């Protein structure tokens, strides 16, 4: 992009394209708000043009944000992308008059989300707080404990760790129905599924952190006559923290997936996974999407929380400097 005019003009044209495209799409949505017949070919072409303009605009505007470190301002291109996709989906769905029972328009999903928020929040409490969080805490602490033992005793390392790596290639979904049958429909069965899912990544990661210690530091500890406990407290555990946080971050996703999949096999009439399964079966896709939005927001927030804790506790690590 080595054109003759200055950077300001280039970005200006990007914002212009963006405004033009969004204007086109929004104008169509407003005009088609109450229509019930599909749009004509020319109008569909117009939507395509609007979307292209927006994409082109984002591509130009994003150049401006490439070197910005502030996370909020740097997020602008991504936010614009989401907005573009949502607006374009709304316009396309309206233009083709796709039945709302099949693919609900984003605006309809949002209004449904507001309508059924009480039910969804109760579902989220069951799925996230009871199942995912309890299972996550139990699984991660057990995993950490196992990693400590395995890193201390070579026999356990040789006997257990190969199994841990094998276990990571097992599909957890197959475990879910068995555990639900074994423990019951209530939330503890799902918490157990979550605990098992997050357990193995924690063992493998924490073990790596506890053992991949600089040999020179170990020698130093030895020359200080540090006891085993001191060695773990001052060298191995701090060294393992970044690895542990990696497993914790990975675990947030796994925990949500585990809880939701577990509910597919039986729940006590509550829970996000249960809601999604039931509503997808009777074409209530606006509620399904609302449930997915709730689950996503919680998932992202949880991940963000762990990432924030990570920055707080391992701010000294190379990857943050």
């Amino acid at each position: 992009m080595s054109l003759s005019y200055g950077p300001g003009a280039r970005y200006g044209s990007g914002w212009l394209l963006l405004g033009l495209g969004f204007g086109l799409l929004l104008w169509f949505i407003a005009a088609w708000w109450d229509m019930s017949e599909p749009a004509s070919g020319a109008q569909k072409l117009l939507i395509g043009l609007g979307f292209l303009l927006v994409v082109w605009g984002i591509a130009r505007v994003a150049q401006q944000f490439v070197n910005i470190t502030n996370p909020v301002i740097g997020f602008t291109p991504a936010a614009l992308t989401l907005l573009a996709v949502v607006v374009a989906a709304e316009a396309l769905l309206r233009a083709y008059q796709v039945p709302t029972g099949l693919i609900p328009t984003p605006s309809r999903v949002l209004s449904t989300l507001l309508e059924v928020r009480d039910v969804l929040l109760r579902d989220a409490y069951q799925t996230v707080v009871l199942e995912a969080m309890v299972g996550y805490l139990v699984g991660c602490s057990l995993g950490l404990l196992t990693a400590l033992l395995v890193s201390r005793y070579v026999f356990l390392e040789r006997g257990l760790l190969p199994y841990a790596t094998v276990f990571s290639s097992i599909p957890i979904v197959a475990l879910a129905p068995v555990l639900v049958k074994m423990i019951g429909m209530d939330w503890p069965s799902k918490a157990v599924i979550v605990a098992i899912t997050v357990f193995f990544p924690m063992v493998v990661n924490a073990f790596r952190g506890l053992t991949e210690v600089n040999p020179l530091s170990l020698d130093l500890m030895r020359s200080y006559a540090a006891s085993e406990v001191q060695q773990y407290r001052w060298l191995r555990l701090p060294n393992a923290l970044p690895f542990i946080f990696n497993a914790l971050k990975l675990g947030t996703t796994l925990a949500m997936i585990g809880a939701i999949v577990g509910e597919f096999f039986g729940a006590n009439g509550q829970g996000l996974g249960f809601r999604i399964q039931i509503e997808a079966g009777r074409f209530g896709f606006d509620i399904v999407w609302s449930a997915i939005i709730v689950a996503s927001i919680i998932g992202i927030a949880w991940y963000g929380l762990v990432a924030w804790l990570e920055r707080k506790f391992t701010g000294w690590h190379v990857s943050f400097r």
Partner: protein
Amino acid sequence: MRLSPNLVPMLVVALVVVALYWPIMYLANIPAAQRALDTGAALPCKTAFECATQLRSPVLPSPQQLWNGFANLMFPLNSPNAIPINAAVTAFETLVGLLLATLVGFFFAIGMVASRAFERALLPWIVASQTVPIIAIAPMLVVLLGQYGVQGWLPKAIIAAYIAFFPITIGVAKGLKSPDPLALDLMKTYNANNWQTYLKLRFPASVPYLFTAFKVAMTAALIGAIVAEISTISFQGIGKMLAENSRASDVVAMWVIMLSSAVLGILLVALVNGLERLLTPWRRSSQVVAVPTKETRLAAREGVRS
């Protein structure tokens, strides 16, 4: 053949688990058996202890029950209700899904490496798509694709791909960025164009990363395929067997299916490992050096490459 030093400890652990299985099984099943006896169910046994191994829906199945269930579900090999065919169908869906995921992953990865603007606009959503419980979308996606005539194994492969594309995208992007700056400079001094740099330097450099990503993605794709089978009307596949037996409350069959799907997962990852060894033979030596064991240190001193 040299024996792995892990073998003996692994066997000991396996033996301990097997030895503990019986007492735990009895502990778990005797209360259930007692309850069954108290309700006067027609059981071919008298005491709770005897019944513990013969319950219709045990908490933990006895080895005998597992063995019988295994024999029932494994044979005949070509029966549509037996595990081999269903496992093959699921494996096929998983592999097709992985292929699709690789294509999508390369597309995103090349975009991200070629343009930082592209990365800024899309990477947050690619990451966010992982913190989202994507599995939740599977039931909906299946119904949706079915409405537009996409049926059979394809929707399952698409869902598998959707779940597996993320590790591949990240892995390939890392791999494409991995060449030594000196090597990139060399390409520049050879006056190589962009296309040649990708073909001759960046793609080969990304292959080891691709395989590392494949190992994670394979399990993810398998999970995706099974979940897709569960949440749709499907006539074949591990997921269909799971759903069927879950509805029929056949606990022993569920255990057998769980164990076989575990074997399937392990086999698929082993397949990736085998391919990796076949296609990136130069990695083997570097891996050995990366983890210096006593043997390799000895070998290095003697100048022998193991």
